[in-house]
């Protein structure tokens, strides 16, 4: 069951990611990215990260990507122009990418110490309670610093959105 679920959603994620890269229109890419995020949320659930799965959908798919879609719709961005690509890139790009991935997969397979597989329920520390406990004790300072970061981002966005720039 775990393997079936993993294979289904990993396939969806990879197909959506490929679609993101090959689509010419930004809104198609944005929707593919939402597909990747949703299937990754399912994989997080399989890995025991129930809180992260919910946050992935709420923050990533529900807020950040809405912003992207909003901007694409607002600018009414059309399909992108083809720019003059080099012949070498078109010829060797995809094979080289595949070769690189094969290398990475080989290294991961060989370099990883033998471990038992991932099964649902093997990790139960991903609950909101457990994450909150660690976040507000061990990682309190980084947590506070990120709030400052967000404040800076808000101010930056407001400044950039003014008319004069």
């Amino acid at each position: 069951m775990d393997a079936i679920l993993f294979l289904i959603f990993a396939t969806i994620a990879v197909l959506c990611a490929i679609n993101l890269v090959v689509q010419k229109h930004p809104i198609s890419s944005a929707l593919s990215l939402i597909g990747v995020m949703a299937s990754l949320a399912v994989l997080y659930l399989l890995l025991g990260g129930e809180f992260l799965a919910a946050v992935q959908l709420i923050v990533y798919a529900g807020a950040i990507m809405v912003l992207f879609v909003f901007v694409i719709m607002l600018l009414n961005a059309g399909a992108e122009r083809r720019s003059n690509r080099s012949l070498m890139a078109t010829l060797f790009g995809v094979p080289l990418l595949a070769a690189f991935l094969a290398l990475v997969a080989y290294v991961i397979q060989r370099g990883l110490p033998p471990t038992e597989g991932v099964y649902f329920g093997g990790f139960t520390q991903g609950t909101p309670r457990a994450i909150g406990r660690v976040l507000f004790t061990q990682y309190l300072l980084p947590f506070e610093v990120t709030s400052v970061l967000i404040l800076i981002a808000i101010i930056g966005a407001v400044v950039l959105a003014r008319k004069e720039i």
Partner: protein
Amino acid sequence: MQSMTSVPLSWYLILSAILFALGVAGFVIRRNLITVFMSIELMLNAVNLSFITFSYQLKQVDGHIFSFFVMVVAAAEAAVGLAIILAIFRNRSSLQIDDISSMKY
């Protein structure tokens, strides 16, 4: 029973690597500013998957915290980045990265 249906840890890592590589490819070959930005988000997502996989492997919650922070940073980055894209579009009426080759004017 569990060992029969379980998924090797490396599959998750390889999936993460594939997604990251596709993100890099999109970053390099796309010519639309927003799509390039989305490729970066894809790379961040791939890294998050790695974090959570390792968190499972080490039976520690720290990986979840890291990916939580990555999401927070991504949110901040999206707000500022999209504001910059809007400003660029107002000035140059184009989202093609080839058109944005000079620092000013």
